[in-house]
């Protein structure tokens, strides 16, 4: 393999990892504060993607499509948290089962509304072309996805470290009861956090609809990858999600070239290894 090919495969891995990060970051945020394993996160991704496709078809505006995807995810997430999850708050098993049920219902509703075909978000012309990198062309949109992920990642990190809301969230993550006793409105934090996580899923869906297409089952396929990312990186940690996304994205790209027979295995093997050697993930903390 030439150096150039290696560099391009690295870029392939990083750009796919960027999408995984967008999805995994929302998942890990919600878990970090609320200890909810939200398996409906993939369904929010699916809804965000479909809404973006519809808005794009109606208005032709890409920014508006992405914004609607985010909004759809956040609003739906909010409804799920307020109307359903709240009723089983604090009970781990019912929470997980409820999110599984929600995922199935949303997946089937999407199938009923949009049919079994794949929906592709028609990305505007200035983003669909190829950018010349060295002697080869590389899709511009993939580079855009990477930029979006970096911006979102930096925003989340700074938001958590530098803002008052971030400080309260970190306090809630560290010790929920103590923070509550110190006057932090945990209940409101939960709402904000769930909506933010769901909005990130919607964003990932809108971006992913241009990269991977939306179709029945896309939610579960991508959620599986996001779970691997989160487990490798460490549950509840944003830097962990970033590291996990890079690791899994690169493994996915390299393995398809170097040992294609084991491409699927190669993605899941590190997760098993991490669970055995370091169950909290690379950057996770024991709770």
């Amino acid at each position: 393999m030439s150096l150039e090919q290696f560099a391009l495969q690295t870029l392939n891995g990083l750009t796919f990892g960027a999408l995984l990060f967008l999805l995994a970051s929302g998942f890990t945020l919600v878990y970090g504060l609320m200890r909810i394993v939200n398996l409906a996160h993939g369904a929010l991704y699916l809804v965000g993607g479909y809404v973006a496709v519809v808005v794009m078809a109606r208005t032709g505006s890409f920014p508006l499509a992405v914004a609607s995807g985010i909004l759809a995810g956040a609003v739906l997430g909010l409804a799920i948290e307020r109307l359903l999850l709240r009723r089983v708050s604090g009970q781990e098993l019912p929470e997980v089962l409820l999110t599984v049920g929600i995922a199935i219902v949303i997946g089937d509703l999407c199938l009923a509304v949009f049919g079994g075909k794949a929906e592709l978000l028609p990305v505007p012309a200035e983003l669909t072309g190829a950018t010349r990198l060295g002697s080869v062309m590389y899709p511009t949109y993939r580079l855009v996805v990477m930029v979006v992920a970096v911006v979102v990642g930096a925003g989340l990190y700074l938001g958590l470290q530098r803002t008052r809301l971030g400080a309260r969230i970190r306090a809630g993550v560290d010790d929920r009861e103590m923070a509550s006793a110190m006057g932090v409105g945990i209940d409101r934090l939960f709402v904000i956090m769930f909506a933010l996580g769901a909005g990130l899923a919607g964003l990932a869906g809108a971006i992913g609809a241009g990269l991977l297409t939306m179709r029945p089952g896309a939610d579960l396929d991508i959620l599986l990858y996001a779970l691997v990312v989160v487990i490798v990186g460490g549950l509840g940690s944003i830097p962990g999600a970033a590291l996990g996304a890079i690791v899994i994205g690169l493994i996915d790209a390299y393995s398809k070239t170097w040992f294609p027979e084991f491409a699927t295995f190669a993605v899941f093997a590190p997760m098993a290894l991490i669970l055995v050697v370091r169950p909290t993930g690379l950057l996770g903390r024991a709770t």
Partner: protein
Amino acid sequence: MGHRSRGGRSARPVGSAALAVALAAVVGAGAAVAQDQSGGTVKVGFIAPVTGFVAALGQDMRNGWDLYWTQNGTTAGGVTVETIYEDDAGDPEVALTKARKLVEEDGVQMTAGPILANTAYAVADYVAGQGLPSFHITGADDLTQRRANPLVLRVGYTSSQSNFPAGQWAYDQGHRTAVTLCPDYAFGWESCGGFVSAFTNAGGTVTQLWHPLGNQDFASYMTDIQAAGPDVVFVGSAGGPDAILLYQTYAGFGLKDTTPLIGNCCFADQVFLREIGDIGAGIESFGYWVESRDSDEVTAFVSAYEAAYGDTPSLYAAGSYMMAQVIAEALEATGGVVDGEAFVSAARGVSLADSLYGPLAFDDLNNPVGPVYRTRVEPREDGRLVHVLQETFPDVSQFWTYGQDAFLANPVFSRDFTGVAP
């Protein structure tokens, strides 16, 4: 050739469905006998995945099937055909359970469908084990090759059948190096096997890439193709979402403008064409269903289908229509009597001067011998993308030019075996 010598599959426990199946077997045993001689009605069990990850194909199948009976009436050979629909969700265990239900509870006299290879094998094995005919449009090569059964008839082509001409044609165009990209399971092995055999026998060399099922991102393969720099790329895809993603990535990497791509039967299928947009125009592929072919049969079917369902009929809709037509013709031939192998023999005897696929007959192993078409995707007058006929390869057999015995002496196509020697 080939009597029923297997049964292991149908005797296999089916996990959580085992109890339901056992109950159905007990309850249904008496009913099946009682309904066998139901006089003026023939019951057909129609199995298609209308939910799950191939739901779009299953719905098309159902539409095509229904359209035949709507257009031609449900009476054939003096009996009325009654369809009982089941959904297999693309899952072989579910397909088997549904087949059992159809036979043992509903007392169907034959089955038609499903589409995926593993589901079709499960249904074919079980239904043949019950002494009943089953009709298929799945591509799985061995269904009419090493696992052929006098009770099983395929109305579609094998996965490899239409790709032999593709390999030969690519070589004749002056291409000498090819990259093939196929999914890493039986359908992909067989699709690429057809192309690779013919192309390498002609003197070409290939680099073979395989992508896993449920692949999320095709970028790595595009980089590999760029590195190999072949004369031509062959894609053997099951169509639908995967194919759309693959071709969008192909175009995104700028390969569309530098390297010609040839698709198999199903890569640029009608589901693909509905969604792909402008970049779809110009794709060349080899298959047996051409929705714009100049034929009364095709024109009538396409306009009726579009009027009824809005979409251009896919290969799966056409295939199911053809299954219904062959069954109806066979019922005419037997005077409505459905009697196991004799009925399938009658179906094999059906020979059509023109059909949705063109002139069609069946070989001794119950697989069609018919034309393969090279097509190019172009917009129709109303802007819809359709396949436009470029060249016809008449009377293509599932054994290409190798001959049945020589071909069957080889193992079935797999990841490790894609080149039949001449």
